[in-house]
């Protein structure tokens, strides 16, 4: 599972990075989304993979942390999801505006020859 997830993170990151290096704004925004999936999974993976151990605790009594997934990375991912959603929205609006002003969807606001 670790291997599969690692590879998947790799694919997401690679696709995302490739797209963010592209010249079209839409490619960049899709790339940032993919990248954020990869990054979120990476953060999540830092808490290690556990199945059937959601960090929902019994009410009272002794709690063995090993029986539950680490909630910290999950909390971090939640924050990260929200923030990357927000920034994606913003970026979208900006690329809309950029296209409106420049008439092109090239990231530099003008078409290049090459």
């Amino acid at each position, binding site marked *: 599972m*670790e291997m*599969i997830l*690692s*590879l998947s*993170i790799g*694919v*997401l*990151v690679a*696709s*995302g*990075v490739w797209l*963010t*290096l*592209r010249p*079209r704004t*839409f*490619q960049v925004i*899709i*790339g940032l*989304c*993919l990248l954020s*999936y*990869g990054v*979120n*999974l990476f953060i*999540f*993976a*830092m*808490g*290690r993979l*556990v199945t059937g151990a*959601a*960090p*929902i605790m019994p009410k*009272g009594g002794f*709690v063995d942390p090993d029986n539950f*997934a*680490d*909630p*910290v*990375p*999950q909390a971090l991912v939640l924050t990260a999801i*929200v*923030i990357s*959603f*927000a920034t994606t*929205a*913003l970026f*979208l*609006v*900006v*690329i*809309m*505006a950029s*296209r*409106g002003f420049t008439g092109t*969807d090239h*990231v*530099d606001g003008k078409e290049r020859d*090459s």
Partner: protein
Amino acid sequence: MLAHNLILILSVLPFAGAILATTMPVTARNAEVALAGGVMIAGLIALFLLFPEVSDGGVIRRTVEWVPSASLDIALRLDGFAWLMLVLVYGIGLLVVIYARYYLSPSDPVPRFYGLLLAFAGAMVGMLMAGNIILLVVFWELTSIFSFLLIGYWHQNAAARDGARTALIVTGAGGMALLGAMILLGQVVGSYDLDEVLAAGDIVRAHGFYPWILGLFLIGAFTKSAQFPFHFWLPNAMAAPTPVSAYLHSATMVKAGVFLLVRFSPVLSGTAAWFWIVAGTGMATLIVGAVIALYRNDLKGLLAYSTISHLGLITALAGIGSGGAIVAAIFHIMNHAVFKASLFMAAGIIDHETGTRDMRRLSGLRHSMPRTAALAIVAAAAMGGVPLLNGFLSKEMFFAEAAEWHNGTWLDVALPYLATFASMFTVAYSLRFILTVFFGPPATDLPKEPHEPPTWMRRPVELLVLIVLLVGLFPQALIGTVLQSGVLSVLGENAPEYSLALWHGFNIALMMSLTAMVLGAALYLAAAPRLSRANEAPAFLSRVSAQSVFDRVMLIGTRRLPLAAYGRLGSRRLQVQMRLIVVLVACGAIWSLWGATRLLPLNAFDNFQWSFALLWFAGCACAIGAAIQAKYHRFAALALLGGAGLVTAVTFACFSAPDLAVTQLLVEIVTTVLLLLGLRWLPKRMREIPGDQRPQARARRLQDMVIASICGAGVAAIAFAVMSVPPGLTIGDWFRRNAYSEGGGTNAVNVILVDFRAFDTFGEITVLAIVALTCYSLLRRFRPAPESVALPSQQTFNELPPISRKADREAVDEPTRHDVMMHVPSVIMQWMFPVTIAISAYLFLRGHDLPGGGFAGGVAFAIGLLLQYLATNVRWIESRIIILPIRWMGLGLLFAALVGMGSALFGYPFLTAHAQYVHLPFIGQVPAATALLFDLGVFAVVVGSVVLIQIAIAHQSLRSARLRAREEAREEEAREAPQPILPTTPPAPPPITPQEAR
């Protein structure tokens, strides 16, 4: 005690006067003069009072602390040499102040002039009295800055601007060099105190830094004193008002450099390097200045080159460095200041009264302004070294030193000849000045009718010329003690014996003088006819002037090269920047990971699960598909992106993160709708982009693919390396143990979010609110690209065969085509509204104990609202449901903050939560944590923000419909207008039915 206060007053007074002067009204000309003159007189009085203390080589010191930790204190130090220079600053200052009163025209803003003049005097005083070598640099640079402002006083004049800039750059750069020298010097000596530095000559000269110190120091001194090849700024500075030239370019600022050479000669001189560089530069300057001066047609130009030449003389003396040479240098500093100031003033008077300074136009002025002519002739004679005048005395000392001092180098041997040669030109240009301006037939075509200036404009000149005469006749009686105290303070016990007598016998120096005079006169007579046509410089110098070299260096060094370097080292292209970030971080990561043992994939296929592998097979396929399609098939990329997000959500669910799965799904939905909303305003890629298949473009894509693959592989390897080792002791353990007992909730993730690390959540919702506000603000000004204003093609197409033509009817209250198409689905979507409210409440209420929470609830609610926008249209929905998303955001943030601050009332820090179960009748135990209230704030902010973003984008369709309607109305007008008007908008707008345009 008095002395200590006096020297403080000396240095503060001009600055105080400057501030006062600038605040006076523009019309207060006489008040300005009174103020500035008063400052100068006060300074002179203070100096007079102080003389007894410094006359015998005594030194007065006063230190005011400024930044002791940077060894930078306002250490003032007055000795004989400084005293002597200060007399020049204040004395000539006084005369200049009076002179300027009559020189400046009524339209000139006097407060600025006197303010700057006084500030400059202050800087000069500070420089002369600085007892700390860094402080010296401070004032040194201030003189540069104020002189820059003074030269540019008439800034409407382009020449003034250029002259000021050149002066600032040259002297400012010299100041930087001087700073370097002083820092090194301080490092070598171990102190910035001038006395200690002056006493440490042997250490300095023996130190490895000495060449650096000397080089930087000399750059500083030479630039300021306009030494060759840095001399060119001085003639350009003649664009300054003449009082400024008389003050700065004869008596004060240009003397700063030679002052420094003399002052530091005990520390730095006595080496071969010193002699060669300083004496060599001095001699070169002496000659070059004198030669060019002869060719100048501009009076002030002649005086400027003359000044350069005289400064070269003083520099050469400092380079020789013997006791006698230092005496001569100090003496000549004074003499030159006096006669040159008077000459500048005289030149100013001539300019003022005739309207020109061009010697080719001036002639026979002795008829119309005889007094001025007499004064100028005497001063010019002193400049030429005529006996019985002060210039003669110090020049004889120079000749004597040049002839009698020896160190065995060829330069030493050549000195007397060079000196005589230069002096010949001095005589020649002095003669030219006298003969062309005052003699000959009276000029006829002058811009003004020449006559004598106002009396008080001439008084300063008279006084100066009187000094020229008196010093020339009775040197010992007049300035013997003063000069002696100056020499003592520089040379101390090494001070030589010298005599200031007028007559030393028929010695070699006198012979040199006479030779120079005879030859000079001959030279002038021979050259006179050709001078006015020689284009202001001898032929060999007219082609390469230092100024043009400087201009070229500046153009290349401060414009072209930086531009080229900036372009080469930077990029304005986003792709380059992104690539740099990625590549640099990847390289850094590879570098730090190189050889790490954890990266070897051990147990790679532990816990293999087919379903999970298949899941991610689909996920990866979607991700790669999205990457491939994003350029030409944008909609497809969006769908595939959704697939990848979905798989991510399932992964979260599978590995015990239900909260994440819920949130990811919700955000996924909103993001998709958002991107779709945006896609409406982005170009729909269909046609191939030109050049996309060129080998270059392919190569770049391949290169990026390699970069991306390396990044992906690296992140994957790191992830695997971490995951394959069990965690050590983490703070997560503490959260798991204390989530319920301390945080009062069973869902540890939610307890972290609303309690343990609620501050993060606080920031997160703030980000959301900010982004929503930003999107809204930006979209208020949104102007779509012309090709997206048009109705989407889907809406312009009238379906054939139409189901019914009734939908096209013109009646306004008929359903739109959209309503027809969405007729049945919209009913179901409206049903979903209350259901979404229920789901939202469900997610919100159980968050603390089970998956869910304020964020999930908020997004769910926002989706519910969004669905209603999808089901109908903006107008319809907003006439029924009025949401004020910005208020929601504000209230949510305030509410969350107030809940957090509530704890302060009980003496707890911000965001301290209180958890408790309350027993309600009939209902039973109810959890009542303040954290839940905080979550309510989160809920409100999330709803407000998400709705605001979506609605802001959605409203653009409405706005562009309005735009289209206006466009159409305009076209209607154009069609009805009698004359055809060329269409400014794209032709043939798509036909719009009235309903749609509504």
